[in-house]
């Protein structure tokens, strides 16, 4: 690439970083310098699916601003991703064995939960998923839990399941694996959150600032409710009594007050929409309570929100 076209390219990337919120920790001139770094500084990424649905992976492909191919070729090296890799079958097993035995620095991304009570409920190469997590997490420079299943339990750990699905962090703690963990809840994981986290690790050498549950504070510092377009209505006691009405959706089952996420600031799919803007109460997809026993209900239904009886999980 000529110097000029490289500059144009980096401008484009910088613009994208502004969009996804990464610009606050890196200036354009720093980016120019960073891009001059040798290839060796690009982290390898190994992405694994546990008891997942691949929703976080398909969500990541929707990343705005930075083309996914630039993530692959310029900002990181996706050594293995189950939905992108041409490697298949035994080659994948060889790759995972090779990297875990080597000194190559890499980031492990885990999507989905880890079934520990029925370990045979998730197998790769005839070995339980937990075997691969143990093997790869101990050598990882960082472990990223992608999505609600890997970080807060979510669907595979919902009330009434039998597999004993646990989060990445809980599993690593149980195995005394000390690698740093970054949790990015949301169902699905929001692509900007992962891109920001990866760029931070690449350019700053550290994860972004995290809260006590290891979530980036930047995205999970406030509740959905606090940033809601209907917050003023809530304060004035204007509640919607049915779907389609204007006003706070709390009395129809909205989980905004108990859900930390930034979706009301930067909406889903490149700010195309939010659940609340689309007339639906927040279902709390990034919360510890997800999925609840009741999610959308009629006005003044006493079963909702504050009633512990209709919550399956303690926060």
């Amino acid at each position, binding site marked *: 690439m000529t110097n000029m076209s490289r500059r144009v390219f980096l401008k484009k990337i910088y613009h994208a970083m502004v969009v996804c919120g990464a610009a606050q920790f890196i200036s354009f001139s720093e980016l120019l310098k960073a891009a001059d770094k040798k290839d060796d500084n690009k982290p390898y990424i190994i992405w694994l699916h546990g008891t997942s649905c691949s*929703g976080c992976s398909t969500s990541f492909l929707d990343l705005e601003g930075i083309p996914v191919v630039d993530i692959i070729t310029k900002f990181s090296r996706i050594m293995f991703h189950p939905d992108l890799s041409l490697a298949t079958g035994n080659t994948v097993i060889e790759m995972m064995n090779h990297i875990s035995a080597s000194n190559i620095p890499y980031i492990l991304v885990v999507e989905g939960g880890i*079934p520990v009570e029925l370990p045979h409920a998730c*197998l790769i190469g*005839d070995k339980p998923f937990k075997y691969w997590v143990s093997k790869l997490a101990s050598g990882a420079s960082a472990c990223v839990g992608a999505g609600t299943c890997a970080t807060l339990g979510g*669907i595979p750990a919902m009330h*009434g399941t039998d597999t004993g699905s646990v989060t990445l962090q809980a599993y690593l703690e149980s195995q005394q694996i000390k690698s740093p963990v970054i949790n990015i809840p949301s169902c699905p994981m929001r692509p900007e959150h992962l891109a920001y986290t990866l760029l931070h690790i690449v350019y700053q050498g550290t994860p972004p600032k995290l809260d006590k549950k290891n979530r980036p504070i930047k995205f999970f510092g406030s509740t959905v409710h606090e940033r809601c377009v209907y917050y003023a209505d809530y304060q004035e006691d204007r509640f919607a009594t049915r*779907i389609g009405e204007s006003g706070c959706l709390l009395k129809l089952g909205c989980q905004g007050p108990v859900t930390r996420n930034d979706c009301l600031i930067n909406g889903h799919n490149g700010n195309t929409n939010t659940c609340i803007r689309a007339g639906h109460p927040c279902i709390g997809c990034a919360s510890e309570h997800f999925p609840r026993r009741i999610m*959308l209900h009629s006005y003044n239904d006493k079963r909702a929100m504050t009633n512990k009886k209709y919550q399956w999980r303690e926060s």
Partner: protein
Amino acid sequence: MKITVDPLTRIEGHLKFTTEVKENIVVDAHCSGEMFRGIEKALIGHDARVAQQVTQRVCGVCPYGHAEAASYALEDAMGIQPNRNGILLKNLAVGAYHLQDYLLHFYTLCALDYIDITAILNYKGKVESLVALKSWVSSELKNNSVYPAAPFLPRYSGDYINDQDINIGAIAHYLESIEIMAKLHKMVAIFGAKAPHPVTIEAGGVTVTPSVQDIALFSSYLQSAESFIRNKFIPDVVAVASAYPSYFSEGVSQGNLLSYPYYKDPDTNKFAFAGGASINGQYQSLDTKKIQEHHKYSYYSNLPDSSHSPLDGPILTPLNEQEFETEKNKKDGKYSWTRAPRYSGLPMEVGPVARIVNGYAAGNNPQLNKRVDQYNKQLGITIDNYHSVMGRHLSRAINADLLLQLLNRDIARVEPNQLAFEEHAVPKNRRGIGLTEATRGALGHWIETDNKGYIKRYEMIVPTTWNISPRDRQGQLGPAEQMLVGTKIADPNNPLELARIIRSSDPCMACSVH
């Protein structure tokens, strides 16, 4: 000799398959779903409306189908149907998602089994993204990186396309498809709030009050998606199909095809895709009473009668670790978390092929028949070639073409500023069935509520449950197992043919087991 592929990548989820090969021909095959969550049982005791949000999360690739089927099942129990806008917005959100899913399947998951990614090294043009890709791949190879050019290499060696123009064109479209898919997801989000996992598709409609801006934005995205699909996706599918004509007779299933009615016209109550069952080449209308699930070879404790209709019979219990080991080491033991649904006792292939072949036989959609006749002439095939590797890819292209017409029709029919939702109470002690088509095939949800309106019983029979099913209690192979049998493998160390066959059925393993 045995050839095992585990894990098969570039599908959704955890799939292993094992084949027995004699003189380079597959003589036997076993497909195993390797991941289980137990969501049906877990739903018991949840509010009936929760099913929409939870069941779509069995799959992050086709969540739309589950949201739709769950809403239909509860609407059936309620005895209602949404208002006109409600039906239209479901059609539009789900239809846009179908298009995204077709592109994901063809480009992200399958194309690089045919297209030679290394052709980029000989690229002579000036397109920025391709030049960047070329210089990256060549520097990766030169610098001797660990697994250079991952995730695109290493790969199976095999008979990739030689034609440089086809390769470069398709690589460019592979990259471009990612942007178009994001746009299609935005179309879903306009009425669904987000994609994956659209929240607004409820029993009673869609919770959105569409604005003029929503309609305009959807139309504008539809135009650019349409241009990509018509000018790039469909020609790429045809180019690959023309380069591999033998794949119209490879990966052939038993040929029994099942599909459910899909895409309702709110003004006529007719479906664009008729649904039904083709058995031994004879088309018949759908009868859901003929559906039973077997579990003799699935990792659940055996019940005395190892097959039952949805909602009838006791809930299956997953095997514990010890039982699992015992079965694995048994000669004719259980080998998959997937169960084995059968229609009139027969294994059925589902998917875009079934929609096309059953629709063609039903004859209710003249556009569909016209397209099929046109491609048959162009490619020198007949309707009997469709349940093959290339027939499946071609069927997706035809489906996408027809959907574009339907979306254009329906976005113009949406009434602005009219709420697309009506609230109805969740009925007590009631059963309902919700049927639809995900891109990968026939999807059914069955619900039963208790005396308080909570879920008493929930069953899903999902496209991949049909296609990747293990043997049933009669020992009949699942459709994908049958597709593998008879395949000639050029190089047992690089069983590219087998990977192409399984990928052509578009497995979604998280869906299939759930």
